[in-house]
């Protein structure tokens, strides 16, 4: 069972890698915003498989943390990419 779960983990990681290549190449920033979500979901799957395979303590806690932070990063990515060039308040008047 250990071997099987690790193999699936490696497989999931490979599919994430494939998707990541596509997402990072863009062309739009909206494509790139998918990266944390893709890695979040795939990373959590790989982490859970790894944890179940090796019986490591805390793997699920790490996965839960990853879930929350990936969601947080995704929202921040949407904000960061869709709201560019916010003028600095102290630069008013071209200073």
């Amino acid at each position, binding site marked *: 069972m250990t071997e099987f779960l690790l193999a699936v983990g490696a497989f999931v*990681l490979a599919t994430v890698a494939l998707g990541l290549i596509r997402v990072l190449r863009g062309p739009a920033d909206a494509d790139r915003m998918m990266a944390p979500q893709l890695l979040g979901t795939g990373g959590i799957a790989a982490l859970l498989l790894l944890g179940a395979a090796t019986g490591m303590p805390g793997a699920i806690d790490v996965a839960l943390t990853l879930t929350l932070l990936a969601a947080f990063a995704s929202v*921040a990515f949407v904000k960061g990419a869709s709201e560019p060039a916010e003028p600095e308040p102290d630069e008013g008047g071209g200073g």
Partner: protein
Amino acid sequence: MTFALAFDCGLAVLILAMAIWTIAARTTFPAVVGFVAYGLLLTLVWMRLAAPDVALTEAAIGGGLTGVLLLGATSRLRATEPPAVSERPSVPFRLAVAGLCTLLSAAIAAVVLLLPDPAPTLAPEAAAKLSLTGVGNAVTAVLLAYRALDTLLESAVLLLALVGVWSLAPDRFWGGAPRSLALRHRDGSLSLLGQVLPPIGIVLGVYIVWVGADAPGGKFQGATIIGAMWVLTMMAGLQTPPEISQAWVRVILVAGAAFFLAVGIAGFWLAGAFLAYPTGFAKSLIVAIEVALTLSVAATLGLLVAGPPARPVRT
């Protein structure tokens, strides 16, 4: 263990690819995306190395918070991006940078590869004295008992970082609130997420802090989750960043380091040394310090993301 090897090799290739992408990207946003991906992958690496405590920190800090801090920098740098991209450094300069970076990497690799086998370790001694601290997680014992001074200085460094960010504010905004983090296009689904996720996140953050005494977890990881949830409510437009001159903000920010320092000084009389815990009270003091630090670190990280004040004090 062939599948384990395949897993590790795949992970190593992927993480190297992300590192190269981050360096090679010509503009900041794709580079930050690559960096966040790199952080998430590093979490898996630490799990493979059987270091769940580090994995948890990496997931919280590397995957989430650092990326968001860098994104803040990215959106501020947007205006200067085109001239920066068009300005290509000369070939000798780039060669020199590449050479120096290679030298540094080679030095680090040499240090790791030349370690005697078995590598020197203090782990058995740390584990042997674990019962004296009352905590069950050796990492927590190192952070808050054996090397408590480092952790105290770390919490002070975080405060200094925030003061550094605040000092970027122009004089007329000093003491005011950072600019709103809310998305300009209000979105119903985001305010739903901002209402549903934080309660779960806070429970998980408190759980991670609490469980840190005996299992992988700890104040820094838990605090990052709580801080991230606070920022999420601000991004959803449900809350605005507080004015930094308000007394309660300052009290929360310094509470953790101040309490830690007070316990440390009390150690002179109660246990004979700075930061020494009186026998029998080690675990309860460690947990109390962790709770105080959690609150402060969460607030500090949230305000670090919010950035320098950008509005005058409301009168």
